[in-house]
C-alpha cells in the first residue's frame, strides 16, 4: 500500500496529531515491515478514527440504531453499506458517500445532520479511507456477510428454517392423551414442572363453548355432556360444537380482527360500507364449511382470478378492500400509494408473520427483509383495481336481471328522458365542479379515452371516478330547481317513474370486491438516494432470490395467484407456522410464538419449536383443515387442564407466565363474548345468522353489529374490541374506571339487568341464568343479606301479580295509563320503522298532535330537542285535522338544527282500529306511511312517501322512547284511545314484513303488546295521582342481576 504524500495534504491542526501523523508515515515508509505498518495503522485508527466514528456516527449508525440501514461500527457494515449502497470505497475517498456527506457539499446529503465536523476530523476520515480504510481485526468480532448482504445469523434464524420433520417424543407417565401432550410433557419434565389436574365438567364445557362459539353453554349443552358416559364424551362434545354454525361466528371474529375488517372508510367522513357484510358472511361460512385454509387464503388474495364468475369466491377479494379510504381526498395518487402500502403491510404480517412494514423505507433493521423485498411483495398488488361496478350474482342471475332491467328501461325510456332533460345539465355542472378539485394531471387522465390510459392512470381515474359518481349520486334534484313549477313537474315525473316499479328486477347485491386493472401491471418502483429502482413481483430474497414465473389469467396479471400459490405452498415455513400458531393462541390465550404477527428477531422465540413444526406439518397433511386442528388441540390433556391452579413452587420460580402450560391460562372474555353472554343471560339474544349488520344497541350477536371505525359501539370499544385501522393479532384486556362506569351506569347493560330481573324470581334463579350454576351456601347468604337490607326484611317471592289488570291497551288522560315509558333504553338511530295497532277516540281541540310514539321533548331549537314523534293532528292544525304526521328535529345538510313536519295527508277516522306502519329514513330523506283501516278489510292500505331534508341525529337529544305521548307530561299531546300493540324496528321493514297480526312481530328494538302486560321493559306514567309505586323487590333483583353481570366470574374464564 503506497500513500502518495499529496493525498495527505490537509494537515491536522494539533501538534499531537501531527506527531502521530509523522510516525505513521515513518512507520510506513522508513521501516517498511508489514507488522510495523499494521501497528501504526491500528494506532492511527484507534486514536484518531474510531473516536470520531464513535462520537459522531454510532449514535445513529451503531448497534442500537441503524439510520438509513447503515451501521458504522464495523468495516464490514460500512462496506456493505445501508439502503443506498456502500458507505465507502477503500482507497477512494472521492468515491465514498461517507466523505461526500461529511464534506457538506450537497444540501440534502449532510452528515452528521446537526453540525458539520471540524475540518480536522473530515481530514482524518479522508485520510483513513485513502489509506484503504484499515480496521484492526482484533478490535471487534468479525461480521460475516454472506450473499445478498445477509449475515449468517440472519440466514440461520429459526423462522426461515424449513419445517422440521419432528416425531412426538416418548414420555413417561399416563398424563398424555395425544401427541401434542408429548411435546408439552417433555418440556415439563425438562423444567421439572407438573401439569395441572383436569378441569371439571363445568369448567371444560364453559371453556370449550366460549372458545368455539363465543357463547356461554346452555343448560342443555351442559346436561348432554354430563349425561354422556362414554370415554369419548369430550370428543363428542367438541364435535358437536364444531358442527354448529356458531363456530364460524366466533372464529370468524378472530379473522376479521386480523384483516382489520370494518364497515366504514375510517378518516373523517368515515362513510358506511353497506356492501362489505357479505365478506363477513363469507368468512363465517368458509370456516363453518371447514374450507381448507390454503383455499381460504387463495380466494381472499386472488378469488377474482380463480373463479371470476362465482360470487361465493369473488366476494373473498373484499380482503383487498379493507384499507381505510377517504372519498373526498383530492390527492388520489397519494391515497392509492397509502392503500397499497396498507395491503402490503397487512399481508406481510397476516400471512407471513413478518413486520414487512418496517422495510418500506429502508432494509429491515433486524430481520432479513430488504427494502426491495417490500416492494417485491407490493408489486403483487400493484395492478389491483377497486371495483364498484360488479354484482354478487351468478351469470344466470345477472342475465335474468338484465332481461328484466331491459324491460323496465324500455318502458321508462320516455319518462327517464324527460327527467334527464330536467336535471342532467345541473348534474353535469356538479360533476364538473367535483372534477376541478383534482390537479391538472389527474383532470387530464380523466378526460383521456380509456384505451389511451396507462394501467396506473386507469387506477387513478377509477379513484377520481368514485368521487365524480358520488357527486352525481348525491345531487339533490329538488333543491336545484328554482321554480315551484319545476319542482312539481319533477315530482310528478318521479311519481310517474314509480308506477313502473313493478317491472323492476329485484336488485342484485353490490359486490365490494377487487380485480386487476388489466393484464398489464403498472410499474412498481421505490426511491433510494441513487434514484428510482424498478422491481418485479417476488418473494423474500432470503428464501426465493429469483423472480417467480407469472402467467396472466384472463384479463388479469395473475400476480396475486402467484403470491397465493407461494403463501399456500405446503413447504412454506412461514405461512404454515403462522396459522397453526394463531389457532393455538386463540385456544390458549398465548401462541407457541407469543408474538403471533411477528416471527422476526424482535418477536418471541417459540416456546415449543418442535411442536410448532409438528403441528404445521400435520395441518398441511390433514388437508389444511382448521377443524381437525381444533379437535386435536382441544382433545389434548394440555387443553383439558384446569385454570384453577395457583402459581406456586417450581412454576412460580421458573415459569410464572405459564409459557410451558402447567395449567390453563385464565382469561377475560373478549368484548363480543361479554356482550353476547349478557344477551344470552337476559334471554334476548337474537341468533339470526348473516345479512346486513345492525346497531349494537339492539340484540343480535356482536359479529353482526355495525362496525364503524370512528364510532365504535361504546360497550365493545370499552372492552377492547379493535377499531379496524390495522391488523389486530391479540386483544388487550383492560380495566378502567370508565369501563366500570359504563357497565354499572350505562343504559345498555342496565337494560339487560332489568330484563333479567323480569325472568327470575329467586336468588338461585339469578345465579343459574347468569352464571349457569346454583350459588354456594355462602353466596346465597351474601345475596340474601343484600336483599334483606334492601327490602327491610327477608325476601318473599310475590304470590300475586303486582300489576293491575283491565284495559291495558287504553291510554287516557288523567289516569295512571297516560303514557308508556321505555325501560330498555332502546336506540333506533336515524333509519327506523314504527308499526302499531291503534284506535283514536279524540283529537285535540286546538292544534296539538295526539302522539302514537315518540322520542321527543316537544322542543324545536336546541340540541336536547333532537328527536321525532308520530301522531295525528288536532282540529286547528295547519295540516288539517286527523292527519297522520311525523315531526322531526335533527341536523340538516348544513349541520344546523332543523325542525320538520312531514305530513302524510292520510287521515284517521275516530273510533276505528287501524294498522299504522311508518318508516323514517334520514339516509333517503323520506318518510313512508302506510295506513290500513282494519274495520274495512276489503279496502287497500293507503300509502304515502314524503321527502324531508334532515340528515340525521334524531336520537341525539335528551329524550327517550315513549309510547302514547312525548317525553314530558303534556296531556294535549297524549294519545286518547287504544294502542294494542306497537313495535319499533331498526331500519326499513319490507312490505312483506308489515303485518297487522302483532303476534307475528319478531324482530323489534322495542315491542309493546297490551296482552302481555308492561313486563320489565315498560313503565306506565300517569297523572301523578296514581303513578306506579316503586317496586323495591324488582329494583333489588335488577341490582342483583346487574352485579352478577359485572362479576369477575361472569367476565372471566378462570
Amino acid at each position, binding site marked *: 500500500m503506497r500513500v502518495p504524500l499529496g493525498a495527505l495534504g490537509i494537515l491536522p491542526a494539533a501538534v499531537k496529531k501531527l506527531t502521530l501523523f509523522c510516525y505513521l508515515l515513518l512507520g510506513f515508509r522508513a521501516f517498511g515491515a508489514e507488522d510495523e505498518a499494521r501497528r501504526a495503522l491500528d494506532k492511527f485508527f484507534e486514536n484518531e478514527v474510531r473516536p470520531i466514528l464513535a462520537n459522531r456516527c454510532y449514535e445513529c449508525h451503531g448497534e442500537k440504531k441503524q439510520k438509513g440501514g447503515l451501521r458504522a461500527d464495523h468495516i464490514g457494515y460500512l462496506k456493505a453499506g445501508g439502503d443506498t449502497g456502500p458507505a465507502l470505497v477503500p482507497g477512494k475517498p472521492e468515491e465514498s458517500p461517507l466523505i461526500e456527506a461529511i464534506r457538506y457539499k450537497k444540501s440534502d446529503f449532510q452528515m452528521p445532520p446537526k453540525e458539520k465536523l471540524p475540518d480536522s476530523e473530515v481530514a482524518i476520515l479522508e485520510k483513513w479511507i485513502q489509506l484503504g480504510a484499515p480496521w484492526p481485526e482484533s478490535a471487534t468480532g468479525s461480521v460475516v456477510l454472506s450473499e445478498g448482504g445477509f449475515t449468517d445469523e440472519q440466514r440461520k434464524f429459526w423462522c426461515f428454517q424449513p419445517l422440521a420433520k419432528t416425531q412426538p417424543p416418548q414420555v413417561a407417565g399416563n398424563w398424555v392423551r395425544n401427541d401434542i401432550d408429548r411435546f408439552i410433557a417433555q418440556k415439563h419434565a425438562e423444567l421439572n414442572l407438573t401439569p395441572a389436574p383436569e378441569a371439571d365438567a363445568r369448567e371444560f364445557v364453559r371453556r370449550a363453548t366460549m372458545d368455539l362459539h363465543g357463547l356461554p353453554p346452555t343448560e342443555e349443552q351442559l346436561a348432554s355432556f354430563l349425561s354422556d358416559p362414554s370415554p369419548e364424551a369430550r370428543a363428542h362434545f367438541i364435535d358437536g360444537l364444531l358442527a354448529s354454525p356458531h363456530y364460524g361466528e366466533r372464529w370468524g371474529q378472530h379473522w376479521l380482527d386480523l384483516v382489520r375488517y370494518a364497515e366504514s372508510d*375510517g378518516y*373523517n367522513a*368515515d362513510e358506511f360500507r353497506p356492501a362489505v357484510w357479505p365478506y363477513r358472511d363469507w368468512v363465517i361460512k368458509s370456516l363453518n364449511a371447514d374450507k381448507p385454509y390454503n383455499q381460504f387464503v387463495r380466494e381472499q388474495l386472488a378469488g377474482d382470478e380463480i373463479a371470476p364468475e362465482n360470487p361465493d369466491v369473488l366476494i373473498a377479494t373484499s380482503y383487498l378492500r379493507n384499507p381505510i379510504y*377517504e372519498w373526498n381526498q*383530492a390527492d388520489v395518487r397519494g391515497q392509492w400509494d397509502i392503500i397499497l402500502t396498507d395491503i402490503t403491510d397487512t399481508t406481510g404480517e397476516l400471512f407471513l408473520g413478518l413486520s414487512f*412494514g*418496517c422495510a418500506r423505507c429502508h432494509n429491515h433493521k433486524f430481520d432479513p427483509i430488504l427494502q426491495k423485498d417490500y416492494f417485491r411483495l407490493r408489486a403483487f398488488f400493484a395492478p389491483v383495481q377497486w371495483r364498484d361496478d360488479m354484482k354478487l350474482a351468478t351469470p344466470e342471475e345477472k342475465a335474468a336481471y338484465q332481461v328484466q332491467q331491459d324491460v323496465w328501461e324500455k318502458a321508462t325510456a320516455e319518462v327517464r328522458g324527460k327527467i334527464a332533460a330536467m336535471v342532467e345539465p345541473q348534474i353535469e355542472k356538479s360533476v364538473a365542479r367535483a372534477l*376541478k*378539485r383534482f390537479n391538472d394531471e389527474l383532470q387530464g387522465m380523466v378526460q383521456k379515452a380509456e384505451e389511451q390510459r396507462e394501467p396506473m392512470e386507469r387506477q387513478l381515474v377509477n379513484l377520481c371516478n368514485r368521487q365524480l359518481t358520488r357527486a352525481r349520486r348525491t345531487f339533490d334534484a329538488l333543491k336545484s330547481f328554482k321554480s315551484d313549477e319545476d319542482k312539481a313537474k319533477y315530482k310528478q315525473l318521479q311519481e310517474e317513474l314509480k308506477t313502473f316499479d313493478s317491472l323492476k328486477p329485484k336488485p342484485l347485491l353490490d359486490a365490494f370486491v377487487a380485480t386487476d386493472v388489466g393484464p398489464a401491471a403498472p410499474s412498481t418502483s421505490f426511491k433510494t438516494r441513487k434514484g428510482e429502482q424498478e422491481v418485479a413481483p417476488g418473494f423474500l430474497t432470503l428464501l426465493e432470490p429469483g423472480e417467480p414465473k407469472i402467467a396472466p389469467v384472463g384479463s388479469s396479471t395473475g400476480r396475486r395467484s402467484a403470491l397465493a400459490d407461494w403463501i399456500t405452498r405446503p413447504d412454506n415455513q412461514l405461512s404454515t407456522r403462522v396459522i397453526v400458531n394463531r389457532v393455538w393462541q386463540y385456544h390458549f*390465550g398465548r401462541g407457541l410464538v*407469543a*408474538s403471533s*404477527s*411477528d416471527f422476526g428477531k*424482535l*418477536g418471541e422465540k417459540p416456546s415449543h419449536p418442535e411442536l410448532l413444526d409438528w403441528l404445521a406439518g400435520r395441518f398441511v397433511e390433514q388437508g389444511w383443515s382448521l377443524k381437525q386442528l381444533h379437535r386435536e388441540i382441544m382433545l389434548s390433556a394440555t387443553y383439558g387442564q384446569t385454570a384453577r391452579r*395457583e*402459581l406456586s413452587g417450581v412454576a*412460580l420460580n421458573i415459569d*410464572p*407466565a*405459564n409459557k410451558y402450560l402447567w395449567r390453563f*391460562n*385464565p*382469561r377475560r372474555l373478549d368484548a363480543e363474548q361479554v356482550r353476547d353472554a349478557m344477551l344470552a343471560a337476559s334471554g334476548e339474544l337474537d341468533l339470526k345468522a348473516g345479512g346486513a349488520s345492525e346497531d349494537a344497541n339492539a340484540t343480535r350477536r356482536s359479529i353482526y353489529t355495525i362496525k364503524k371505525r*370512528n*364510532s365504535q359501539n361504546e360497550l365493545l370499544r*370499552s372492552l377492547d374490541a379493535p*377499531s379496524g*385501522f*390495522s391488523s389486530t393479532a391479540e386483544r*388487550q*384486556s*383492560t*380495566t*378502567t*374506571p*370508565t369501563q*366500570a*362506569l*359504563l357497565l*354499572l*351506569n350505562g*343504559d345498555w347493560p342496565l337494560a339487560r339487568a332489568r330484563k333479567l330481573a323480569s325472568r327470575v324470581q329467586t336468588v338461585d334463579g339469578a345465579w343459574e341464568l347468569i352464571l349457569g350454576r346454583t350459588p354456594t351456601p*355462602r353466596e346465597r347468604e*351474601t*345475596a340474601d343479606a*343484600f336483599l334483606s337490607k*334492601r327490602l327491610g326484611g327477608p325476601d318473599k317471592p310475590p304470590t300475586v301479580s303486582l300489576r293491575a289488570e283491565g284495559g291495558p291497551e287504553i291510554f287516557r288522560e288523567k289516569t295512571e295509563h297516560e303514557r308508556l315509558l321505555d325501560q330498555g333504553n332502546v336506540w333506533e338511530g336515524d333509519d327506523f320503522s314504527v308499526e302499531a295497532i291503534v284506535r283514536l277516540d279524540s283529537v285535540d281541540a286546538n292544534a296539538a298532535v295526539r302522539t302514537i310514539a315518540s322520542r321527543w321533548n316537544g322542543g324545536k331549537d336546541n*340540541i336536547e330537542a333532537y328527536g321525532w314523534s308520530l301522531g295525528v293532528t288536532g282540529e286547528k292544525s295547519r295540516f288539517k285535522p286527523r292527519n297522520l304526521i311525523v315531526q322531526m328535529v335533527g341536523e340538516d345538510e348544513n*349541520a344546523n338544527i332543523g325542525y320538520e313536519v312531514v305530513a302524510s295527508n292520510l287521515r284517521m277516522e275516530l273510533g276505528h282500529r287501524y294498522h299504522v306502519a311508518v318508516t323514517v329514513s334520514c339516509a333517503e330523506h323520506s318518510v313512508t306511511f302506510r295506513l290500513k283501516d282494519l274495520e274495512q278489510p276489503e279496502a287497500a292500505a293507503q300509502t304515502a312517501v314524503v321527502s324531508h331534508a334532515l340528515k340525521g341525529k334524531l336520537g341525539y337529544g335528551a329524550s327517550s322512547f315513549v309510547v302514547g305521548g312525548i317525553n314530558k307530561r303534556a296531556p294535549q299531546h297524549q294519545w286518547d284511545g287504544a294502542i294494542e300493540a306497537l313495535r319499533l324496528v331498526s331500519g326499513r321493514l319490507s312490505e312483506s314484513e308489515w303485518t297487522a297480526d302483532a303476534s307475528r312481530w319478531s324482530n323489534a328494538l322495542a315491542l309493546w303488546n297490551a296482552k302481555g302486560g308492561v313486563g320489565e321493559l315498560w313503565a306506565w306514567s300517569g297523572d301523578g295521582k296514581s303513578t306506579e309505586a316503586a317496586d323495591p323487590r324488582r329494583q333489588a333483583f335488577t*341490582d342483583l342481576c346487574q*352485579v*352478577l353481570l*359485572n*362479576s*369477575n*366470574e361472569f367476565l*372471566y374464564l*378462570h
Partner: protein
Amino acid sequence: MSCERIQQPTSRREFLQSAGCGFGAVALAALSPQSLLASTSTAALNPVAAKIPHHRARAKNVIFLFMEGGPSHLDTFDYKPLLNELAGQRLPSSFKPPLTAMGEVNAPLLECKREWKQRGQSGLWISDWFENVARHADDLTVIRSCVSSGINHAGGVCSMNTGSVFGGRPSLGAWVSYGLGTENENLPGFVVIKDSEGTVVNGVRNWGNGFMPAVYQGVEFNAEGVPIKYLDNPKGVSNERQRDKLDLLSALNRQFGETRSDNTELEARIRGYELAYRMQAEAPQAVDLSKETEATRKLYGMDKEETAVFGRNCLLARRLVENGVRFVQLYSGAGSKWDSHKGIEKAHSKLCQSVDQPIAGLLSDLKARGMLDETLVIWGGEFGRTPMSEAGDGRDHNPSGFTMWMAGGGLQGGRTIGATDDLGLYAVEDKLHVHDLHATILHLLGIDHTKLIYPHKGRPERIDQNEGHAYAKI
C-alpha cells in the same frame, strides 16, 4: 436489561415477576431500569401510577388549546409586512408552488387587515386579534416554523394529535399518561373538553389510546352538567343503592378471588369499580365552578356571552390540572370552525374574540396561583393558512409553515423560534415538524422521547415514529 418483547402475562403479579418488565414500565423495559418506573411499590400494580421522568422536568402538566380547523398565523402571531405590499398579486414565481387542499394556487395574495404591534418588553409582534393574550407576550414562546404532514383536516388533526395522518396510533395525551402516569387516580389522567357539540374531525380517536391499553385514552368531559358519560347513577338509583350494589359486587368478587389469588387482574377489576365510585364523587367536585369567585369568572370572560364558553373551559382546565389531571386538551371551534376558506375576517374575528380573553385569563390565573411554572400551555391548530386568498376573502390550509406558541412550563417567554419566509408560506428557519413538536413537548415534561417506547407487533414504537428531534434549545 432487555425484554425481547412485551410480555403477555395473565396477571399483573406475573408481570412483575417476569424480569422486571413491570407494567407501567412495560415499554421502557429495554431501557434504563430506573427511568419512568413506578415511583411507589404499590403503584406497580397500577399502570397509571405516577412515574419519575427521565430528566428534570420543566413542566408537570399540559393544557393544549387546540384551535380546530387551522387558525391563520398570518393574521395573529406571524407578522409579514410584505404580504400587504404584494396583496392582490400572484405568489411571486420565486416561491415553490404549494400543494393546497382546494387547489387555488394561483389566487392573489390576501392582505392582512390586522393592526400589528410589538408587545411587552420583548417586543413580540402580535396582532390586535389577540389584544389580551398580547399582554402576556413576555410569557410566550412563539414557534413560527411549525410543519405538518396533513394537508386536510382529517390528516392534520390526526397528525397533530397522534403524529400520523392515519388513525390507529396513540395520541400525545396518551403517550404522556403512559410515560408519567397520573397524580390523581380518582380522575382520568387525560381529559378533553370541547367548546360545542360539534364533532372534532375524526371523532374520539383524536384522544384515543391507539395500540396502547385503554387506561391511557383521553376521557371527554362535558363542560356542563355531568362531566363524564355514565358518571351519574342510573336514573332513580340513590347513592345508597349504588353503594349496596358495589358492596355486593365486591363481596362476591372477593369470594371468587379467594382461590385465585395469583390472578391480579381480578383484584384490579375490584379496584376499578372502587375507583369508578370515587370518580363519581370526585369528578363533579373537580368541575364545580361554584367555588370560584366572581372575580375569577370575570378574569376568564365568563361574564360575557362571546367568551363565556371558552372561558368556562379554560377555568375547568385550571381546576383539573389543580386536581392532578396530567393532560387537558381544550378544543375551540370543534368541527373545524377555524377553517376559513372564505370570509376569514368575520369568521376569525369571532373565534379570536371568543378565546382571547379566556386564554389571557388562564395565563394570569395560573401565574397568580404559582401554577404556570409547572403547567405547559400550548396554543395552535392542525395547520395555519395560506398567504394566497381563496374564494376572494379566505385562506386555504397551510401545513408547510405555521405558528404555535407555548407558555409556562418553565419556558423563557418573549421569544420566537424559527421563521417562515417573507410571505409566511413555508417554514424556512428551524423547521419543527409535528414530530419535533411532540418530542419537544415530551422533553419539557422530562421525557426523552427516544426512550419512551411502547413495543407493538415487534416494533419499538415511539410517538414520533423515529423521526422527531426534541428542540432542546427551547
